[in-house]
């Protein structure tokens, strides 16, 4: 009995601290994005709240929490209320599965990759339901676009991850990281460069980020599926988007960049290499956003079905053949 309580307390502390760390990352990701894009666009970015604008995310949060929560006339209320939380929960749960260090993973289940993929498919429900429940045609169009996009890009993403699974011989994320030690530079990036490429593109599409931000295309659909949302519910959609970014980047680090394993050990900071790799991937997200225009709906589908999925299948086939030979 005492053991169980000890275990529960330990788990609670671990989960709580992980959640706080993840939330901090998400909050400061928005700040980093605004700062970096500002630099790329020859402007300053946030610099008013706190030193160098460092308190900006907190100020935003306070502002959004204190705003009036408007519910438009004619919405499907229960669905309208619950949709943002579906997005957030599905996007956020993935954090628990990422092995940050060899001795730190909250939930070391043996089908980790499958679970993350399932969660990211489910998070599309939040988008679709909010688009449907909002009683707005713009939101409906955004929701439709999102559902089509997520379905098509998930296939490419799963196929890219499947070749990694094939190489590592396990669905467990911990084992995948450990299996990478034998590869050149202790990462799967070089043997699986095609899969990495496909995965990054699909992950950007999965998170509805530029250049695949069609569901929320600001200049076409105003804001897409969350056009009718306000205050905290609106913020929760944003939180879900950035949580999704963090989880997808962490997955890329785990599956392709060797997780916590680095060229040499850093004493006292076991997460060092994991975080550095995570920040590099997140920077790519932001960099792409500042550079590229947006695809059109049919072009996006074309890219997914005609380019990414065939490439991923060929890569999977090659991996299988090479695995058989060696």
């Amino acid at each position: 009995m005492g053991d169980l309580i000890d275990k529960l307390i330990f788990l609670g502390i671990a989960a709580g601290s992980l959640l706080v760390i993840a939330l901090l990352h998400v909050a400061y990701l928005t700040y980093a994005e605004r700062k970096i894009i500002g630099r790329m666009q020859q402007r300053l970015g946030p610099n008013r709240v706190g030193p160098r604008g460092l308190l900006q995310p907190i100020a935003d949060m306070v502002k959004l929490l204190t705003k009036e929560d408007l519910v438009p006339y004619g919405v499907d209320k229960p669905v309208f209320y619950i949709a943002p939380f579906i997005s957030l929960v599905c996007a956020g749960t993935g954090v628990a599965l990422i092995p940050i260090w060899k001795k730190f993973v909250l939930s070391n289940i043996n089908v980790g990759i499958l679970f993350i993929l399932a969660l990211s498919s489910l998070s599309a429900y939040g988008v679709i339901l909010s688009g449907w429940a909002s009683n707005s045609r713009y939101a409906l169009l955004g929701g439709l676009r999102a559902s089509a996009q997520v379905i098509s890009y998930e296939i490419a993403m799963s196929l890219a991850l499947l070749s990694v699974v094939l190489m590592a011989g396990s669905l467990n994320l911990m084992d995948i990281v450990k299996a990478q030690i034998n590869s050149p530079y202790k990462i799967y990036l070089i043997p699986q460069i095609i899969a990495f490429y496909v995965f990054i593109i699909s992950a950007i599409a999965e998170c509805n980020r530029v250049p695949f931000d069609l569901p929320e295309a600001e200049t076409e659909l105003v804001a897409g599926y969350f056009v009718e949302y306000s205050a905290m519910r609106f913020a929760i959609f944003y939180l879900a988007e950035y949580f999704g970014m963090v989880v997808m980047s962490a997955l890329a680090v785990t599956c392709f960049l060797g997780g916590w394993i680095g060229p040499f050990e850093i004493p006292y900071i076991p997460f060092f290499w994991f975080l550095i790799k995570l920040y590099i991937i997140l920077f790519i997200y932001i960099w792409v956003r500042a550079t590229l225009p947006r695809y059109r709906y049919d072009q996006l589908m074309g890219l997914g079905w005609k380019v990414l999925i065939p490439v991923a299948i060929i890569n999977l086939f090659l991996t299988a053949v090479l695995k058989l030979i060696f």
Partner: protein
Amino acid sequence: MATYLEINKKQVNEEKWEEPFYINMGPQHPSTHGVLRLFLELEGETIINCTPIIGYLHRGVEKLGETLNYNQAIVLSDRLDYIASAANNTAFALAFEKLMGLEVPRRAKLLRTIVCEMARICNHLLWLATHALDIGAMTVFLYCFRDREWLLNIYEKICGARLTHSYVRVGGVRQDFTQEIIDELYKFTEEFPPRIYDYEILIDVNRIWLKRTKGIAVVPPEDAINLGLTGPCLRGSGIAYDVRKFRPYDAYGEVDFVVPTGKNGDTYDRYRVRMEELRQSNSIIRQCLDKLPETQGEPVLAENAPDLLMPEKVKEPKPQPVPKKGVIFRGVEKPIVPVGEAFASIESPKGELAVYVVSDGSNKPWRLRIRTPSFVHISAIPYMAKNHMVADLIAIIGTLDIVLGDSDR
């Protein structure tokens, strides 16, 4: 085009349950460039029908012009196409000068040409910024604004205002350039061409940009003429019509420039035409600046130009508290405008801008009619948007380069 009545009828007809999807875009929408309202009939995301509804920015400029005297009407022209106000000023001034038979000094002509081409650069930069932003490339937006800011600062040095400056006036311009402005403009013309190159490498080699613009909203030459397109939209279809070449006004007769044209008449060609025009405008400014020393010391306003004068007896507060704020017109005492009519058209950055004015001999126009390019271009949207997707519609609005102040007047 479906009217509301027809739509209601369709909805009542229950047998046909496969209805198109109607969506109302605007008048408050981030990418309709103002208060344009579009009523769309969609099938999936494909546009079957599109009805532009305008008039949300109607201020009655034409009627208002009939109640103001000639120099005051120039101020109204700023508010038409507020992005390139120098071009509007010039169109008004040319028509009024024709009516009054004024001869503009050469230096004033050169200065007008310079500010007009500056306006063209401003306009095209803003167009590029918003067009790229609509398609999703947000970085170009701020780069363009940086350079536009430079030009607006020069405008501020020239006449004190940045956007609606009324620098051009009947019979010439407001005041001469100082040496500082000329130096600044020389500096600008030298540094600007590399920056055009910067924009081009930002978006011209971008595959997504090419996919979004090539083959979108193709207008064949015959259709472009029939739709009444002018300016870069017409030249994008391959017709080298430019008022600056065909009926040179101001100093355009004495400068060398090329009229760039496209081939396919799609969004990409219109983009290329405008980018080339940026270079040409830059060279025109340069040539005019080189010619300025020849006319050093000349007046910048015609001798017999109608003048804006302050009241002569400001110091005496007595007779009656008549609210004579601002200015009076010399022509009130002595009409200088003959009875008659005049027409002038110029190549504004957006297309051909024409002004027709009828005078009854008083100091106010009896009738003022303005032909604005945006109004005509909006009428081309249904033709161009047909069978395109919603995302293309945004590109089409961008490529037509419309300003609603210009269209609604």
